[in-house]
């Protein structure tokens, strides 16, 4: 199984720095050969090509409004609430995930979002990195060792 971990965000904006922080943590680890780590930056819809050519995609991004307390939430794109369908410069992950089934040739990879709600502390980001690695290759698309902090 080929897995791609795509970390999204802007390292220069604190509210959006979670993805890049997790990327840096994972970049310092030895990853399995079948795992590709990608700094997705601010690419938004430009990430479409990265949803091709693999079996599993784990997206790491800052999220807002998915849990009451700061922490990590595991999201299934198919179960995400409706998002604005208008494209704009602010169109990010939500638009990307909604567009993918319409424009990419099947089969689509299994996609899971590891969302970080609230401040991207070092501890939270390390936990998110661990969850990413636990999710690699998981047939259910969920981490193999689900911890309470992950409950969405």
């Amino acid at each position, binding site marked *: 199984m080929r897995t791609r971990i795509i970390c999204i965000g802007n390292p220069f904006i604190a509210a959006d720095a979670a993805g890049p922080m997790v990327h840096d943590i994972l970049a310092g680890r030895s990853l399995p050969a079948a795992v590709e780590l990608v700094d997705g930056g601010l690419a938004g819809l430009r990430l479409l090509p990265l949803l091709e050519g693999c079996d599993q995609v784990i997206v790491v991004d800052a999220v*807002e409004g998915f849990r009451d307390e700061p922490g990590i939430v595991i999201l299934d794109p198919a179960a995400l609430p409706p998002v604005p369908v*208008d494209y704009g410069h602010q169109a990010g992950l939500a638009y990307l995930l909604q567009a993918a089934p319409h424009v990419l040739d099947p089969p689509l990879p299994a996609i899971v979002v590891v969302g970080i709600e609230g401040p991207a502390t070092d501890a939270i980001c390390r936990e998110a990195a661990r969850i990413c690695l636990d999710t690699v290759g998981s047939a259910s698309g969920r981490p193999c060792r689900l911890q309470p902090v992950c409950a969405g």
Partner: protein
Amino acid sequence: MSENRKKTIDVALNRVEGDLELRIEHEDGVVTNAWSKGIMYRGFENMLKGRGALDGLVLTPRVCGICGTAHLLTAAKALDMISGAQLPVNALLVRNLAMMAEHIQSDLRHGILMFMQDCHNPAYASLPLYGEAVRRYQAFKGRSVIGAIGMTKKILEIVAILGGQWPNSSFIVPGGVASVPTFNDIVNCTYIINLFTTWYEEQILGCPLERWQQVRSEQDLQAWLDESDAHRDGDLGFFIRFARLVGLDRLGRGHGNFVSFGQLELPQGSAVRGRTADPLLLAAGFIGQGQAPAGCDQELVTEHVAYSHFVDYPGGLHPSEGLTQPYVSPYEIIKYSFCKAPRYNGRPAETGPLAQMLTSGHPLFADMIAAGGPNAYVRELARLTRPAELLPAMKTWAGEIDPEAPFYHSVREIPDGHGYGLIDASRGALGHWVEISRQKIAHYQIITPTAWNGSPRDHDGVRGPWEEALIGTPIADPDNPVEIGHVIRSFDACQVCSVHLLTNNAPATGRSRCVRV
């Protein structure tokens, strides 16, 4: 006119620009005043000070999530100048191809996914073209939308192929490009250009590129539209029919000043030629209202802060001397935007594809501006048809890359000095002004296209381009001011790209607003 008839709308144009707000004052259904507010301090200039000389190559592409290649190229050009680098032909070709791919994806994503979305605004539900607009542009269902997402994804693969990395490609460096495309890479690029051209001809133009290039005046445009059903049924034909139906040509006039920094250097020996004697495919220039195009002299660029949330200085400063010291006071009554106000020779100027077509001598747009002045219709027409200018040159340039020749001339270090990089990004004139001292960045100033178009008032109280363009705009329904959206979107505002959060409480329509009476 009694004062109490004036009403104010604050429009948070989410679909255009999350960090942009407009305050519109209208009276008797017509906009009488406007204020464009950038509501986020960016501060890249201060972030860059004291960092390594090459750091702008990595950091400034993060200024924008859509125009990363443009910022990378502009940063590299400034360092090319400081280091006196002479670029190999291959480097120019690769740089050009990457920029053109970025422009084309931007033009069509904006045109089809953003601008044309308004064609099925509920305000137009009773119009005869409404049903057709829904079939074409309904999100994730319309055939034009699906095609545009898929094919713009395809054209961007050229940047990935040439840059060797995707996303956040950093392959443009002082002295050339760091990647060395193989023969197979070039074949792949040519295949993508051909594939995209076929789709663009069939879906957007409804005719071959060569037929469209024969359209050199408004009279030619009418003849082209009348010529066949295929022309009328393409997205361009639909846009023209829709624009005439709702009167887009009566919206968004503005100051009538245009600035372009030009772009796409013509490599020595290339078969590609521009329309002018400029060494660029799309020439740089400035056009004052009603005047002939003149050259563009970056020495005449200044930034004003009288109405911006920055520490005051008199008049305007050239970017090489620019100051970026944010200042906000609870007692402030004058300053209203975190955008500075760029001016060319003291005058506001709009920038973008229309400015680019005019300064580079495109006869159709010169004719349309001479006849009716600038407006939302001609602005968007320039954007939708810019790929027709770029695709033939792309194909030629891809074929001119010699995989055996150099792509880079060594630049061992960046010496002390001043330099600037000027290009036209997808939305218009983009400039980086840089000073290097002892291998570090001593000064960095960036003027983006949206800073030009969305600027607040300047030292003399003169409105920015789209503030001025909104004056006189009729508003049929203040609760759904679609006319304002047409005007602002014709400039393709961009400022929000630094933050993308996945949110669970985003507004359902992207048109949140509050009305203040």
